[in-house]
C-alpha cells in the first residue's frame, strides 16, 4: 500500500445475497432450493485511492451503493472480490450512539462508546471535558441516558464520535443532528478537522455542503464509479444524469399507466389565521415543485381562481429540491406570486387554497389550504406575538 494513501480500493465488488424468504432455522437452511437465492451486485469493480488529508464526498442516488462502500471501508462488510485497505485509525460516524447503555449515565456511556472506537482509559480521560463541553449537556451528563431526549442522545453520540481523534473519519449523512445551532457547530468542527490533515469521507445529499466542505467528489452510479474530480463539476454532471433518469422514469411510468406525479406546493405568506388589511392588495407568496412537465399552479380565493399569478425566483427552495426534482424545476420559476386586488377583500373569514396540477392530465398533485381573516385595522403577526 502506498504510504501516502489513507484508503486503497482495487477492483472491488460486493454482492448481496437475498433469499426469497429469510431462512434462519436449520430446517430451512437444509431444504433451501437454489432458485430462491437472488444475487444483487451493489458495487462493481471499484478502484479508488483516497490520499491522506483529503476530504472526499461520495455522491449518488439512493441505492447506488455509496453507503455500502462506506461500510466496506469500516470493515463491517467484506468485499466478494478485490481488496480494500485502510491505513491509520478509522472512525465512522455511521454508528452514532453505538454501545450506549440506557441505564448508565452520560458520562459512563462516553467511556463505553469511546471504548468501542478503540480508545483506552487515559485517552478518554484526556478528551472527556471536550466531549462534555461539545455536547452542551451540562449537568445532564450525570443523569442516565434513558432520561435524555432524542436530541440530547444524538448530541452526546456525535460529540464522542467527532472527538475520538481518528485519522480517517467516515460520515454518513449526519449533519441532521440536533437544532440549527448544533448543526452549525458540527459543520465548523468538520471544517476544522478538514484543515487539520485528517482524511474525511462523507456520504451526503446536501450538495451545497459538499461543495463547501470537500476538495473532491466521487460519483457512484448504479454500483460503478462514474466520475471522480472537483465537486462542482462532478455535482453538475450528477445532476444532469439525475435529470435524464428522472425524466425517463416518469416517461416509463406514464407508459405503464401508473404515473403518479409527485410534488409539493406551499403558501409562505400570508400564514394561516393571519389578519390582513382590506386597505391594500393582498400578495400571496409561495412555491411549488413537481416532477411533471408544464406543471400548473392555481391559487383559489374562496374557491374562485386568482387571475393575477406569475412564477418567481426562489433560490432557497431550488437548492433544497434540486437533487430530488433534477430536470423538472428551474430556479427562476420555482416560486409564485399571486395578487388579489383590495376591491375583492371583504371583511370576514376567507378560504385560501394553492394547488399544483399536472400540465397534461390536469390531475391535482398537491394542495394546501389555509383560512385568513380580512378586517379594517389588522393586527400584524409580530404584534400578535408580543401581545
Amino acid at each position, binding site marked *: 500500500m502506498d504510504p501516502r494513501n489513507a484508503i486503497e480500493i482495487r477492483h472491488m465488488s460486493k454482492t448481496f445475497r437475498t433469499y426469497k424468504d429469510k431462512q434462519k432455522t*436449520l430446517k430451512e437452511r437444509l431444504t433451501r432450493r437454489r432458485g430462491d437465492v437472488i444475487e444483487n451486485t451493489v458495487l462493481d469493480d471499484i478502484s479508488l485511492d483516497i490520499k491522506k488529508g483529503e476530504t472526499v464526498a461520495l455522491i449518488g442516488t439512493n441505492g447506488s451503493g455509496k453507503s455500502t462502500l462506506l461500510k466496506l471501508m*469500516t470493515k*463491517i462488510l*467484506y468485499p466478494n472480490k478485490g481488496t480494500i485497505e485502510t491505513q491509520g485509525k478509522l472512525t465512522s460516524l*455511521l454508528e452514532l450512539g453505538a454501545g450506549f*447503555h440506557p441505564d448508565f449515565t452520560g458520562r459512563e456511556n462516553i467511556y463505553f462508546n469511546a471504548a468501542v472506537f*478503540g480508545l*483506552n*482509559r487515559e485517552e478518554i480521560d484526556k478528551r472527556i471535558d471536550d466531549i462534555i463541553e461539545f455536547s452542551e449537556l451540562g449537568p445532564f451528563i450525570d443523569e442516565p441516558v434513558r432520561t435524555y431526549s432524542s436530541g440530547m442522545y444524538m448530541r452526546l453520540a456525535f460529540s464522542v464520535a467527532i472527538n475520538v481523534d481518528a485519522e480517517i473519519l467516515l460520515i454518513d449523512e449526519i449533519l441532521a443532528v440536533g437544532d440549527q445551532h448544533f448543526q452549525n457547530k458540527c459543520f465548523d468542527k468538520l471544517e476544522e478537522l478538514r484543515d487539520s490533515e485528517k482524511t474525511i469521507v462523507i456520504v451526503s445529499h446536501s450538495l451545497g455542503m459538499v461543495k463547501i466542505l470537500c476538495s473532491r467528489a466521487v460519483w457512484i452510479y448504479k454500483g460503478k464509479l462514474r466520475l471522480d474530480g472537483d465537486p462542482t463539476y462532478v455535482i453538475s454532471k450528477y445532476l444532469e444524469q439525475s435529470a435524464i433518469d428522472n425524466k425517463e422514469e416518469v416517461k416509463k411510468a406514464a407508459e405503464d399507466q401508473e404515473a403518479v406525479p409527485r410534488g409539493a406546493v406551499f403558501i409562505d405568506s400570508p400564514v394561516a389565521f393571519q389578519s390582513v388589511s382590506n386597505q391594500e392588495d393582498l400578495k400571496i407568496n409561495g412555491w411549488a415543485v413537481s416532477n411533471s412537465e408544464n406543471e400548473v399552479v392555481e391559487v383559489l380565493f374562496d374557491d374562485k381562481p386568482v387571475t393575477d399569478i406569475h412564477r418567481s425566483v426562489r433560490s432557497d427552495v431550488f437548492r433544497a429540491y434540486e437533487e430530488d426534482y433534477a430536470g423538472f424545476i428551474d430556479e427562476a420559476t420555482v416560486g409564485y406570486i399571486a395578487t388579489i386586488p383590495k376591491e375583492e377583500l371583504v371583511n370576514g373569514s376567507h378560504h385560501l387554497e394553492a394547488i399544483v396540477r399536472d400540465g397534461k392530465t390536469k390531475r391535482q398533485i398537491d394542495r394546501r389550504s389555509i383560512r385568513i381573516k380580512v378586517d379594517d385595522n389588522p393586527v400584524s403577526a409580530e404584534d400578535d406575538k408580543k401581545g
Partner: protein
Amino acid sequence: MKSIREFYEYRELLKTNVRKDIRGRYKGSFLGVLWTFLTPLLQVLVYYIVFPYLMAGGMPNFLVYLITGIFPWNFFQTSIVGATGCIKANEGVVKKVYFPRKILVLSQILSGLVNYFISIPIMLIFCVVFHIPLTWNVLWLPVIGLVEALFIYGCGLILAAINVYVQDVANIVQFLLNLAFYGTPIVYSLSLFPSKNILAVMIRLNPLTMIVDMTRAVTMDGILPSFTQMGIVFALGVVITVFGTWVFDKLQKGFAEEL
C-alpha cells in the same frame, strides 16, 4: 497473534464490557450482583434437600460436595449461554462499528471468570464451616479456573459464530448443557457406578468431570490436583481455541449481513 494485539488495543472495550456485564445483569434488582452467587447456592440447597432421599447411603459433607461441583459448573454454563448469544445480543453495535468481534466472546468468559474467582472464597468458607481442613493446595483453584476459561473460550467462539447463521444453535446448546449437567458428577458420585460401566467411562472422559474432580481434590481432599487431568483439559482447551479462532475468523465476515 493478530487477535492478541487487537485485544490489547481494545483493552478498554474489554474492560467496560466485563464491567457492564457483571454490573448490568442485575441492575435494578434489590440484591444486585449478589444474585450471581445466590442463584447457585439456592440451587445447591434444592439438591441438598432432594438428593439424599433419591440415593441410598448418604455421603459425608454432601453440601460441600455439591458446592465445589456447582461453582465450576456454573462458570461453564453461564459463560457458554452468554457466549452463544453474544453476537446476536450486540447486533446493533456489530452492524455499525468495526472492532474485534472476539472481544464480545472473550468478555463473556472473563466476566464468568471474575465471578468464579469471587466464588472461591465462598467455597472455602463452606469448607471451614464444615470442618474440612484446608491446605495450601487451594491455591490451585485460580489455575483450575484459568484452564477452564480457555476451554470455554474455544467452545464459545464456535457457538457464537454459528449461532449468527443458524438460530437453532441456542436451543441445541440448552439441550447439551442439560446433558452435560448430568454427565458430570455434580449431584452424584462416580463411585455409584460399577467401574467398567460404559456410562462411567464416558463421564470420566468429560473434561468437566476432570475440572470438578480437580476442584474437589484441592478443597475437600486437600491434595494436589491430578496433573494428567490438568494437562488433558489444557491441551483440549488449546486445540478447541485454535479451531474456534479459525471457525470464527471464517464466519465473522458475514456477521453484519446475516444479522
